[in-house]
């Protein structure tokens, strides 16, 4: 559907070429869906979990490169297994959740380093996964991205009420009969899928930024949880489009430019927030 939509749209500069249209579609898909997952993560105070999973996904990418399997699949397997392991560690030792993340950071990189050492020079293959390669997204990639983003959005819409209850008060949610442990597992698995999808756009090293920064901006502007979900998603899309345009005009890496756009938006909102709040208080 996305392909036929792109074919039907005579997009103007700077998206007049097919590879740029594919990048735009990929950016819009990931930019809209990653912050939805991020909204739940940030409120669960798990903003850094995406980075931990990104490092584990990198180990999966390494396995894919060495074995010849499409690295997105191996990254997905590594991230999902890692997500469930982190959640187990986190729930068993609540005060040591940061230790679980530290383990993911170190073990992910160490495993990737060891696995890649089995193969000769793989710098070129690896760079696209580390820093993103949105301009190389193919039509086949786009179909996978669209399917994954739809699954992520669909699952989160289905369990929104239960997840929100867990976020507000885990004990009360458990006492109400909500399967808290299963909800936490599900959120981690959805995060793993989002991470692997976002990996193509901004790269493993910046993957968490696309999930967390739009939420950091949106929650300063929105009043409700639902409006935060919608606004963070819109901000993700805006950043993806602006990042691609600026990246093309200034010949900059699009992944990094998308994240810098988010960073700039965050600073603007943070600076503007003070006067707006003071005006509200005077009323």
């Amino acid at each position, binding site marked *: 559907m996305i392909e036929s939509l792109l074919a039907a749209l005579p997009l103007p500069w700077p998206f007049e070429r097919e590879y740029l249209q594919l990048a735009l579609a990929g950016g819009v898909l990931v930019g809209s869906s990653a912050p939805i997952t991020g*909204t739940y993560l940030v*409120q669960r105070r798990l903003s850094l979990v995406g980075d931990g999973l990104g490092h584990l996904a990198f180990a999966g990418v390494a396995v894919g490169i060495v074995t010849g399997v499409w690295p997105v699949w191996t990254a997905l397997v590594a991230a999902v297994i890692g997500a469930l392991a982190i959640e187990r560690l986190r729930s068993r030792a609540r005060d040591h959740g940061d230790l679980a993340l530290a383990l993911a950071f170190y073990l992910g990189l160490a495993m990737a380093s060891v696995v890649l050492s089995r193969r000769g020079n793989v710098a070129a293959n690896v760079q696209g996964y580390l820093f993103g390669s949105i301009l190389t997204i193919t039509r086949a990639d786009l179909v996978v991205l669209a399917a994954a983003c739809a699954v992520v959005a669909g699952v989160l819409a*289905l*369990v929104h*009420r*239960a997840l*929100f*209850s867990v976020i*507000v*008060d885990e*004990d*009360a*949610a*458990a*006492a*109400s*009969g*909500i*399967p808290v442990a299963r909800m936490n597992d599900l959120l981690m698995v959805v995060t793993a899928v989002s991470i692997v999808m976002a990996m193509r756009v901004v790269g493993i090293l910046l993957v968490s930024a696309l999930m967390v920064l739009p939420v950091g901006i*949106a*929650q*300063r502007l*929105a*009043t*409700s*949880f*639902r*409006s*935060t979900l919608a606004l963070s998603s819109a901000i993700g899309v805006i950043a993806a489009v602006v990042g691609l345009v600026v990246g093309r005009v200034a010949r900059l890496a699009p992944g990094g430019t998308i994240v810098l756009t988010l960073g700039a938006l965050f600073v603007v909102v943070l600076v503007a927030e003070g006067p707006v709040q003071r005006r509200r208080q005077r009323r």
Partner: protein
Amino acid sequence: MLVVVETILTLRNVSFAYGADPVLDKVSLAIAPATFVALVGPNGAGKSTVVRLALGLLRPTAGTVELFGEAPTSPAARSRLGYVPQRPFLGRDFPATVREVVASGATDQHWWRRIDPAKVDDALEQVDLGALANARIGALSGGQQQRAFIAKALVRRPELLVLDEPVAGVDAEQQERFAATLGRLRDERGVAVVLVSHDLAAVEDRLDRVIVLRRQVRFDGTPSALAADGVHLGTHGHDLPRWLEEIA
């Protein structure tokens, strides 16, 4: 004539230990409908453990817990219970309205079911927060947030409301409003209230019963009977620890 007193929460000879540390030792107590009960005791007395046993979040190492005549994990029993957690507070940045937080209290194991907005409105009115329904929860004071959490527990129209240290850090005026709300729930809706607190000054006049816990039930009776022992709830913070030392 035989008078059968219905109980909605019953602990029979309940013992509980965290590993090798015993917390409760053969605790027995029963809560009747439409009563206002305070559960007091020093830190580490096992008050929060009793709450978590009643909620089905912990299992006793010995003895039995019954909620509405069933296991506390039974969905039917859980649907009749409301719970206000210890020091509920959502930060200023938490992006949700009061209405969204209160409505989340209606979510249970059938989370996909639609939440009746009339029940949410009713719960908000019960705690005088109707006017702030669309305000951001983080913009509320500690006392207002605490009332929002009571509304969250009330949205399922529970028959038993359990509150675990809900007034910590709340000013005197908000505590008085809080006490009035709990008294009204018992009097007008027949809700049984179990309040775990270190500070009972605001609710002293409304209590039906006080249970003093220190690993075991040390006292179970009316506030006036406790006062006859020289323990006044209004100054409970000073009297109770001394008294517990004496009876230990």
